[in-house]
């Protein structure tokens, strides 16, 4: 008598969770822009047996953006999920995995990310600032001013902009621009005059960092900048990779 086929996997089964974890790690590991994402929900799972101890798994995942930039050395488990009122961003991913003898590997993934609608955010928090386009004039001006301010007040390598991660603008009761951007160290020091000629250090030597800045435009003019430079990450036997303390400058 042939054995009955195994019951289909449920989305909350440990095996499904393990596949989703592998998928999320793969997605974050292969992304070079934006922020790390965490699993919010397994939408669907399909398993196609390929033979003994071999199966193909199709996953549909719902992810949420964290506050950790993709270049940040912070482990995903320590990253904070961006709150709903911070204008959350969702990621929808289709992932194809293979499981051979219990070993999972990702074969392909396809993701789209979308911010929550302005209406949804305003319904819960009418005064919350909303996401702005990264090429918005006020956003670009704030990032430029913030980076210039940081470089002028801090010794060490001159930092250049890598990418604007996100930006929000609030109009009431005050006009405020909030920006977050990734930076990279150059071969120049901040004291050097000709910063236009400064080149980004090669990837294997480069120091990456992440900055947040708040610029109050009305009623008063005020700028606050906060940058964290992660530092060159070279694991050594006495300082394991994840336990290294990275240089931090505020």
């Amino acid at each position, binding site marked *: 008598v042939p054995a009955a086929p195994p019951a289909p996997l*449920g*989305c909350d089964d440990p095996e499904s969770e393990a596949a989703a974890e592998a998928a999320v790690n793969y997605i974050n590991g292969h992304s070079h822009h934006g922020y790390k994402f965490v699993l919010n*929900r397994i*939408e*669907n799972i399909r398993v196609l047996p390929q033979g003994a101890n071999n199966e193909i798994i199709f996953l549909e995942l719902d992810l949420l953006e964290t506050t950790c930039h993709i270049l940040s050395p912070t482990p995903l488990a320590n990253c904070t999920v961006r709150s709903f009122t911070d204008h959350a961003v969702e990621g929808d991913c289709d992932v194809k995995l293979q499981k051979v003898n219990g070993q999972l590997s990702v074969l392909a993934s396809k993701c789209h990310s979308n911010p929550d609608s302005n209406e949804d955010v305003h319904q819960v928090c009418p005064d919350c600032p909303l996401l702005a386009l990264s090429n918005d004039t006020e956003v670009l001006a704030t990032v430029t001013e913030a980076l210039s301010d940081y470089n002028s007040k801090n010794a060490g390598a001159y930092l250049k902009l890598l990418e604007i991660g996100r930006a929000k603008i609030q109009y009431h009761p005050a006009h405020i621009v909030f920006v977050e951007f990734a930076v990279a160290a150059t071969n120049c020091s901040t004291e050097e005059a000709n910063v236009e000629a400064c080149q980004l250090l090669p990837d294997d030597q480069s120091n990456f960092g992440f900055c947040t800045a708040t610029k109050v435009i009305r009623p008063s003019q005020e700028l606050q900048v906060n940058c964290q430079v992660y530092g060159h990450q070279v694991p050594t036997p006495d300082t394991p990779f994840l336990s290294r303390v990275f240089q931090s400058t505020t």
Partner: protein
Amino acid sequence: SVARRAVAEVAQRDKVPRPVGFVPPPPPCPGNIHHFKI
């Protein structure tokens, strides 16, 4: 009509009574929301 009454009786007879306190299992998918739903 006679035909309709017969169908209704069969449907009623085949209905399996659920024990007291029966909680149907959750649908296998989608899974639980870990944080919040957008």
